[in-house]
């Protein structure tokens, strides 16, 4: 039925099955959109956020998807700047995931702010000292870059490609893509960093506050680093997941292996830096504020040292060690474990840097503030997932996302 649009030489599921899948994701999407509209029309009283939890689930989701979407900029950086050419087989997908993650992040931000119609004030009345301004600028610009990187992919659709203008445009864009990618990497570096800076500059919150270099707290660099380290893991995870779902091999092992190895090194070095940072912070920064490490992990119902262990050891050291060893990378189950743990690790890190910061009392006479999200918050947080699934489904069906798919899955002529 839609075979004219499906890339040549690949096999896709029957159209009704595709539609059913779309419908399923669509229902979840509709639920999310309903919640989103509630938040916009009735206001943020639809959430369980409060004056102690000005930042809550959404901001975590925002930071998490941006970290996970970091695979796009880092693979782009590796391919176009460093020159790891094998990654061209994965870059399309990385760009797609990045596009989904970043558009979701922007949407979440638009729901999260109390006055969405005034959101553009962040540009117009920009305060250049605010990390959030930096985030907004770099995030929107980088989203522009991702769109630019995604457009040629769309233009490669069989039908669109027939139009000479689009064919040429696609060609031209590929030619200058390195420039765009470089700009993207530059922007990414800053917005990933400034997202880290958001927590790090809070000198009123000893749990979040970090010393740093010039105007940038250490979390600035740690966030960039961790996004570059963990983002590719998420890309690998999704490729593996897609391969499982489609029952096809989509990317050659050597490509995955290369990305996994780079990711492993990145995680390893990141977690090393993170441990030093945590140690310095616990021993010097926190002490100077009259507090001790255990003030942040004690005397409440949820946050214990387990979360620090989960983030650094389980979600950091473990996946790093697996990905660094050839054996680990070659074992399907270990690779699965590594990428899942890594994704969890970075998500925990973002959680801690948002929600635990809010939970910890700073005034000695205040108590821990614990919070659970309302269904509207959960629905709007799941919304991007449904949206992502739909976009992946459509893109996978109609666009040549995986250049190696044809070669790996030859169709017997009919």
């Amino acid at each position, binding site marked *: 039925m839609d075979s004219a649009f499906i890339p040549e030489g690949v096999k896709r599921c029957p159209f009704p099955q595709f539609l059913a899948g779309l419908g399923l994701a669509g229902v979840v999407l509709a639920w999310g959109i309903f919640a989103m509209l509630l938040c916009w029309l009735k206001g943020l009283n639809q959430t369980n956020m409060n004056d102690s939890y000005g930042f809550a689930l959404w901001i975590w989701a925002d930071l998490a998807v941006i970290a996970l979407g970091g695979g796009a900029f880092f693979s782009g950086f590796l391919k176009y700047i460093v020159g790891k050419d094998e990654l061209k087989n994965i870059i399309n997908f990385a760009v797609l995931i990045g596009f989904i993650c970043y558009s979701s992040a922007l949407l979440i931000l638009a729901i999260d702010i109390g*006055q969405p*119609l*005034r959101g*553009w*004030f962040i540009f117009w009345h920009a305060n250049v000292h605010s990390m959030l301004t930096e985030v907004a600028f770099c995030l929107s610009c980088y989203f522009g870059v991702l769109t630019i990187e995604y457009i040629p992919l769309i233009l490669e659709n069989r039908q669109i490609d027939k*139009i000479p*203008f689009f064919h040429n445009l696609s060609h031209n864009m590929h030619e200058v893509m390195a420039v765009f990618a470089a700009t993207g990497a530059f922007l990414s570096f800053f917005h990933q960093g400034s997202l880290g800076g958001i927590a790090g500059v809070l000198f009123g919150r000893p749990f979040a506050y970090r010393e740093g270099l010039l105007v940038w707290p250490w979390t600035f660099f740690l966030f960039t680093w961790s996004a570059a380290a963990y983002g590719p893991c998420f890309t690998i995870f999704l490729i593996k997941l897609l391969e499982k779902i489609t029952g096809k091999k989509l990317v050659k092992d050597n490509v995955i292996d290369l990305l996994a190895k780079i990711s492993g090194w990145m995680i390893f070095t990141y977690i090393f830096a993170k441990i030093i940072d945590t140690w310095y912070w616990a021993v010097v920064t926190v002490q100077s504020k009259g507090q001790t490490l255990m003030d942040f992990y004690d005397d409440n119902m949820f946050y214990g040292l387990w979360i620090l262990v989960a983030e650094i050891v389980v979600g950091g050291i473990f996946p790093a060690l697996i990905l660094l060893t050839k054996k680990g990378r070659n074992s399907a189950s270990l690779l699965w474990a590594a990428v899942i743990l890594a994704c969890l690790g970075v998500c925990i890190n973002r959680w801690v840097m948002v929600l635990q910061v809010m939970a910890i009392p700073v005034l000695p006479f205040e108590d821990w503030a614990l919070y659970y999200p309302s269904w509207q918050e959960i629905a709007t947080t799941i919304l991007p997932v449904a949206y992502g699934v739909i976009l992946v489904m459509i893109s996978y069906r109609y666009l040549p996302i995986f250049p190696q798919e044809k070669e790996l899955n030859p169709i017997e002529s009919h």
Partner: protein
Amino acid sequence: MKIDRRCFLSLGIGAAAGTALSPLPWKLMDDASIWTQNWPWTPVPPDGEISYTDSTCTLCSGGCGITVRKIDDRVVKIEGRENHPVNNGGICVLGLSGTQLLYGPTRVKSPMKKINGTFQKITWNQALSEITEKLLTLRAEGRSHTVAAIAGSSRGTVSALLQRFLTAYGSPNFYCQSSIEDSFSLSHIQPQNNKTIPGFDLENADYVLSFGTGIIDGWGSPVRMIQASNAWKTKNLKLIQVEPRLSDTAARSDEWLPSKPGTEAILALGIAHVILQESLYDQAAIDYHSEGFVTWRTAVLGHYHPDKVAEITGIDAKTIFTVGREFGQAEKPVAICGRGKGNTPVSVAEMSAIHALNVLVGNVNKKGGVFTLPEPNYISWPEISFDTKAETSLQTKQIAEGGLLHRLPSAINEAEDSVTLLFVADANPCYTLTDTKEVIRAFKKIPFKVSFSSYMDETAKLSDLILPNHSYLERYEDVPVTSGLRNPVIGLTKPIVNPLFQTKHTGDVIISIARAMKGSIESSFPWKNYYQCLKNGLGQHWNPLLNNGVVEITYIPEFEEIPRFAFQIPNDKPQVLLEGNENKMDLTLIPSDSMRLSSGYIGAPPFMMKTIPDTILKDNNTLVQIHPKTAEKLELKQGCYAILKTPRDEKKVKIHLSQGIGEDIISFPRGLGHTAYDSYLAGKGINFNELIGPVEDPFSGLDVAWGIRASLIKA
């Protein structure tokens, strides 16, 4: 030109690009944000000319001077009046929230009549003729004495007018809520047929021994007391607080004596024992001010040795000795009583035991001490004229024996048709009287109830006719203040704004009813209107009052006019016992007062509700305070629900653990649990008065219940 897909696509993209480059989206974006900055549903208060007018607050018995800020004819803020003898610029949460009462949804906007269970608007003419007819019929039937009235206070012209009307009409059934002043008066021998009121020169005292008095929790004139307590801080004066609970006053005192609840009188006698034993008393002053000292002295020395007192009160003997000595040796020591806000009387025995300390050390009727003052009868009106009807029906016995309001509900419940018509002015008995369930049952038995309330309170809601008074910011009225001051003060409320609704001054309503009754009743009310009645009644005080907004009544009594304190020989158990079976209910429930809770007849406005901590009210639940050990015994946890049972009622409460209360005591916030007023107040928490009932002082008959036995069971 053929419109194919290709063309369509290009057109679409072109259009999008064109629109994006045009000013349109930017203009829309800008307009949208400007719209959010001016949302039509977010009010924009109109600007106008600022003016300030002085008046007097009537929301509690404190009588603070206020300065009202207006923008054109709108009241926007109430502030404390500078240099006012009562509050000198200070103000409390209730006084500050007054604008919300003026403009709030609880106002009764016109006369209302209950028809088939719902209120309907009627005109003033209809309302007045209806009430007049009722009164005339009752009088013709010879049932004048079945008309009763409840007033919030026994003082002031409006209360006096109502009482005057009842008297002229021929009913002896005029009631007011008893107060701690009654206890004080009864512990003195009156030289004339007049009440004795206490005057406290607390600012000049140098040692304050408080028996449960909520000095900064709303006792006396609250703002003035807070100011006095700070004057003590500056002067390094010692404040000793005797109280079972760590109230704000106790927390602020120099020494908190956590006595067992209800044993205050015994502790006072123990302290007296020390003073007597160590001869720290002032014999000359005792002779001058009191009677019956010698026998009393023997009794106290015989029965109240600190060791024994320590056992009963839980305060160790050493402390009793120290306090006794300090009190006896201080230059101007003052002992005061009246639990919490002091709105409920204490037994005469307790009052005597405590005030005896002041008399012993001779700190009576002198600077820094307690004064015995005559009731300030400042209103001078012509004599009431009676017809024979009135004269005879005035001879009937009061429905509630001794004129005690707390006896009224049971009297009504016991006898049919004892009250056929009830007026309620400046009072909310269906909320403030204890054993509220019984009160409401009695209230419902009365065929015709008339409320003068400005607000739809519990009593107004249950009435058959509401004749709404102007709010205190819309009317003239004298505001007599005696509570805790050195000298009585008369304040004046003034109309700050024109009446917003179709309300009428209660004074005017009473006068017009009286005039419509004709005959001797009419001639007892020879005034055109309330304003004239007020002006004439205040005589010499009127001009200074009108000019300054406040006058102080300084009166130095002659020797023979001074009421003399009567030393009461303490019996074996001077403490008031609690209602309830000790074996079935082994906990003691006591109320707790706070400045942020309004427990009087005015319910808390929204601003005030905002200040209530979540350890007292959470959602619609009242939290009771208990000691962690009590909780452990009862298997209760912080924040859990429990059923609180007393002999009068049972309620579901939440538990709050506190180290500020002794074991086996439950502290319950007073002032919540309204069922009327607005959605900001109604249904929030539980009314303490529902859980407790009257316990009479055998000597005076006053309701002196200070708590009740209770049990707590995990819900």
